[in-house]
């Protein structure tokens, strides 16, 4: 592990992120748009456990934003590989572990920035916070973003050309999102849906955040922590293997 090198990768990603204005704008506007249209639209007639639908999906929208940005950020690697940008990094003495770790760290940072923007917007739709809840949200988001970025990097290492990029949305992001309970409560689901959501690690991210933000939690806290830590570890172990084997 070369801390200077990891820091260089991280600084590079953050600087380019901050200079790509469209990326920041869409990162901030998308979730707010969802809350104001979908959340408020359904919220005018739908109440879940006495809680306004807009507030109910708040945690789900944080996860949705993170899903899209982390997985896409990771799989963007396939573009970096196509041009010579990544080769220049791979030819330095920096180990592939370090490069991978720098990228995961960047993915986590982006997710935290975006979460901060959405949390700030939460004030306007009546979400209340404590220092403890914000602290725990940060930990859960960091853990989840590390796992999701690693999945993205795995996809980016395995893909040989960017042509299949659209498929990621269809076959990875959408299933993970729609089967996570981001938009519906986990109680009283049909058996197949209950099984699929329980098998989806993203479900536990949503559940944890919803518990911290509006006090509705389906799974036990210990169960959630165990699953999220395992998810992050496994996703990163697989990611590192894929990244090490990636042809440059």
């Amino acid at each position, binding site marked *: 592990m*070369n801390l*200077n*090198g990891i*820091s*260089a*990768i991280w*600084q*590079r990603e953050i*600087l*380019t992120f901050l*200079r*790509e204005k469209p990326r920041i704008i869409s990162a901030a506007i998308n979730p707010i748009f969802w809350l104001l249209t979908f959340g408020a639209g359904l919220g005018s007639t739908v109440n879940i456990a006495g809680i306004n639908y807009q507030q109910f999906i708040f945690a789900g929208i944080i996860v949705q934003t993170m899903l899209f940005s982390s997985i896409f950020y990771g799989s963007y690697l396939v573009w970096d590989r196509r*041009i*010579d*940008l990544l*080769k*220049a*990094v*791979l*030819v*330095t*003495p*920096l*180990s592939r572990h370090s490069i991978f770790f720098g990228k995961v760290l960047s993915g986590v940072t982006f997710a935290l920035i975006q979460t901060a923007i959405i949390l700030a917007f939460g004030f306007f739709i009546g979400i209340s916070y404590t220092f403890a809840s914000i602290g725990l949200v940060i930990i859960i988001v960091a853990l989840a973003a590390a796992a999701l970025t690693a999945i993205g990097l795995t996809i980016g290492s395995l893909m040989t050309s960017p042509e299949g990029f659209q498929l990621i949305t269809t076959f990875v992001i959408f299933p993970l999102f729609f089967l996570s309970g981001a938009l519906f409560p986990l109680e009283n689901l049909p058996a197949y849906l209950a099984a699929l959501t329980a098998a989806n690690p993203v479900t536990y991210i949503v559940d944890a955040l919803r518990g911290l933000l509006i006090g509705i939690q389906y799974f036990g806290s210990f169960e959630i922590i165990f699953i999220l830590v395992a998810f992050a570890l496994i996703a990163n172990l697989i990611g590192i293997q894929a990244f090490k084997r990636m*042809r*440059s």
Partner: protein
Amino acid sequence: MPIVETFNLTKKFGKITAVDSLNIGIDEGEVFGLLGPNGAGKTTIIKMLATLLEPTSGNAKVNGFDVMKKPQKVRESIGIVFQEPSSDELLTGYENMKLYAMMYGLPKDEIKRGIVEALELVELTERRDDLVRTYSGGMRRRLEIGRSLIHKPKVLFLDEPTLGLDPAGREKMWDYIGRLVRELRMTVLLTTHYMEEADNLADKVGIIDQGRIVIIDTPKALKRTVGGDLVTIKTANPNTGALEKLAYVKNITQNDDQITITVENVSQNLQELLKVVGKIESVEVRNTTLNDVFLHFTGRRIHEEGGNTWFDKIVQESISKS
């Protein structure tokens, strides 16, 4: 002992042999030019030497380190400039250099000093705080050359350093690389498909075709092997039989309705030669270039193969439009 050395270095992609039993040695301080058409295997060779690609068989040593067993040491010993841009457009020149140098694990003060020197060397000090997006193609290439020198590599790999530059930019870049080599006494492995580039920059040229080295020598010696100047004649029906009998005709290559004859003492012999050829549409006489050397050894012209990349085509189109 050579600082870069390959031993039957071979790379196969499926059934295609991209590099076939390569044996070259590059001495310290030497500029070695690998000259060949696109697809000849030049970039594959560089990638193997830079530890980005594992050889199928054979081996190579850079700065005394085995590329397979000591990749880390090899990477510390080399600097490399890729064919296509590899700097970040959204970072300034300075940031690009600094972040890159950090990946080499250099101490802070060494990075600072190194960048100042490198910027000076590639004449980008004035533009150091501008985003790379605002740089011209030549400036960007220079930045990448400068960036590859900060960690003081023993060997510099330049993969098609003037690809995509306009002719003026190309000549400027030659000046640059030439100066760099003289001032830093750097060992350089350069790949190119431009004859003039190899001629201008390289102490020694290896002609490569379809993954095989055809011949290695100094540009001067190579041109001498062709053995004279060249007369290219456009004619429908050349009398090659009679031409071959002339003592001063060294070589004849025929290409559709065009025939290229290597002639000693052109000024004295041209008149007689033209009489012998037969009916002539046009004649061109010129001094030997490496292009002729390539033709001499491979029987083909370097650009003949349609092996141009999409990138080349775009560049050529944009040049012809402007």
